[in-house]
């Protein structure tokens, strides 16, 4: 889809935007202007050096506007836990209240569609929406800001602990074909609030579409948010997702990105440690095969002193898949006593798979403890022989060792039902897939 097509879409969209609060339109106009200036990124752009957005820029998409034929039973493979979970379901970009369940939340906790929250004029939305993910984040966030139609709004008031995870499930089906969707999600955890939010992007069948979600996460003083992101898009889909958190003092943000789907995916996970004593954990696992391209960019910005950040990303690449990891840790001059650790380990199962990994530390404070490292390797031949010498077939031995490599990072997820579900997905990801070139 050309830039011009999106500009035209905005013109039509703005003309029809009567149901939105008046403050939003200028924000959208500024964003589409920014998108016009930037255009789609090219590989000359440093952050897009290893990932070409051309397949998205050159495709012809129409605005995705709901439809779809998704029944409650269709959701079963994508849900976690039990009926006690709050779940918002979006089918082809539109909120599906019949498939959603918002019962049983503690008082004053709000989980709603963003479109509903905007119409109601919820103050937290007005205050926070677009405050974190701005046009500084580049063309895709600008495009999302200009064109988002719906998404989720989660507000956990001060001192409230939400016991069960909240699942935001974005599902595409055959009706998503040739569509582009820009879901926008805002998560606000006021001071000392606690919640676990799972954001899933999944598909039924293999439609080709473009999903461009943006999520903003606001953590007040002492707030604790676990934010798990599950990307299992259709194998023909394009996914460019951005998540930006902002952490006040003593807050804890724990992010996990699990990415196995889409033909081309780019996931940006960003957080800012803006108040002293904050803690950020950014973990992730990507598993790709065939001709999939899976890119993760992370950025941890240490602005305040005495903050800690930990990051472990693992990648497993088979077939002719291409993985990209670019992890940035910025330590500002005021951020003394920063403790940062970043690791990226990759396992290549095939001679045609490859990965570009670039952990980056930029430190402007002098009293910090920061380490980073990256590895790229193959399955250990001796370990394979060991397993085979105990009776495991060569393929089973490879699958088991691959799973063991991946499981290590999945096991860091605290929420048991999600951990178990992702362990199963990781175990089954390459079963039956070609693992040529090993052994």
């Amino acid at each position, binding site marked *: 889809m050309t830039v011009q097509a999106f500009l035209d879409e905005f013109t039509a969209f703005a003309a029809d935007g009567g149901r939105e609060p008046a403050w939003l339109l200028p924000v959208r106009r500024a964003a589409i202007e920014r998108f016009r200036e930037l255009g789609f990124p090219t590989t000359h752009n440093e952050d897009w050096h290893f990932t070409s957005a051309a397949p998205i820029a050159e495709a012809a998409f129409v605005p995705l506007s709901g439809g779809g034929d998704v029944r409650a039973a269709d959701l079963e493979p994508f849900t976690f836990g039990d009926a006690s979970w709050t779940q918002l379901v979006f089918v082809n970009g539109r909120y599906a209240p019949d498939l959603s369940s918002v019962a049983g939340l503690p008082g004053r906790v709000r989980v709603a569609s963003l479109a509903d929250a905007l119409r109601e004029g919820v103050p937290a939305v007005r205050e926070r929406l677009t405050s974190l993910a701005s046009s500084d984040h580049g063309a895709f966030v600008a495009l999302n800001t200009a064109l988002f139609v719906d998404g989720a709004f989660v507000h956990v008031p001060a001192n409230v602990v939400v016991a069960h995870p909240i699942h935001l499930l974005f599902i595409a089906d055959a009706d998503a074909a040739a569509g582009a969707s820009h879901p926008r999600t805002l998560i606000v955890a006021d001071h000392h609030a606690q919640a676990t939010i799972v954001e899933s992007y999944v598909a039924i069948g293999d439609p080709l579409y473009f999903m461009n979600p943006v999520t903003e996460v606001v953590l007040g003083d002492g707030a604790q948010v676990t934010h798990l992101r599950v990307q299992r898009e259709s194998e023909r889909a394009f996914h460019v997702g951005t998540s930006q958190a902002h952490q006040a003092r003593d807050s804890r943000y724990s992010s996990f990105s699990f990415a196995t789907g889409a033909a081309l995916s780019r996931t940006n996970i960003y957080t800012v440690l803006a108040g002293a004593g904050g803690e950020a954990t950014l973990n992730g696992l990507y598993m790709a095969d065939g001709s999939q391209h899976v890119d993760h960019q992370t950025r941890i910005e240490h602005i305040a002193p005495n903050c800690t950040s930990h990051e472990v990303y693992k990648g497993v690449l088979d077939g002719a898949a291409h993985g990209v990891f670019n992890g940035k840790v910025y330590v500002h001059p005021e951020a003394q006593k920063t403790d940062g650790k970043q690791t990226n380990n990759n396992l290549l199962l095939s001679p045609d798979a490859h990965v570009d990994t670039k952990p980056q530390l930029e430190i402007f404070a002098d009293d910090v403890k920061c380490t980073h490292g990256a590895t790229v390797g193959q399955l250990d*031949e001796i*370990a394979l022989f060991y397993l*085979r010498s105990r*009776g*495991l077939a*060569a393929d089973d031995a490879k699958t088991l*060792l691959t799973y*063991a490599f991946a499981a*290590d990072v999945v096991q860091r997820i605290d929420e048991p039902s999600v951990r178990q579900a992702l362990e199963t997905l990781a175990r089954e990801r390459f079963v039956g897939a070609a693992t040529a070139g090993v052994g």
Partner: protein
Amino acid sequence: MLEITDLHAGIGDREILKGISLSVSAGEVHAIMGPNGSGKSTLAQVLAGHPGYEVTSGTATYDGEDLLALPPEERAQKGIFLAFQYPVEIPGVTNAYFLRAAFNEIRKSKGLEEMDPMEFRDLVEERLRLVDMDPDMLTRAVNAGFSGGEKKRNEILQMAVLGPRLAILDETDSGLDIDALRVVAHGVNSLRRPDNATIVVTHYQRLLNYIVPDRVHVLAGGRIVKSGGKDLALELEARGYDWLVEAAPAGVAGAGV
């Protein structure tokens, strides 16, 4: 049970085994001794099917079948077990999972159903006692962070659970203190039956005080230079290997393999 005839094997251009012939019958314990670099471990690994070694000539049959034609997993399924000199660490896979997967693979190859998990747990707990291991070991990742002695015991635990017909112990005694050595030897002895056989590869005689061999073979320079009864081990302990190695053809030198 095992018939090796004029076996030559090596890595790349380097020949390590230079014509080994050995016959092991059911119910027997054979000890293979020899100095470092003599090819003891290579022989053990070749028998288990290590893909890093190439067999250049000679034959090895197991129950009359061409052993060398089988991939490692089929050798294991047919009852061959190698206790590794350096057991491999596998982070992310628990001992319990690994034991059960291996056990059921071997059952499956015989056309048997998987064992009921509860029944299997009982079996493992009984075998744990045999090697004096803590049940906590089951929930730990395979050999990951284990001490040297724990790894060796874990090998014998696997052997005890899988119940091989031909067990090959590759320097299982190295690095063990005397108590651990006794435990390991007790485990091996308890598993002896008239229809299975054991090959004990060792540098030292002391393990053979506990696992008493029927035959002792001295390997040097990739060949068996002397065979005898259990007294040969005592003689080696007293006299060392030099008197045999000097009598052997050239080509003994070479790093430990």
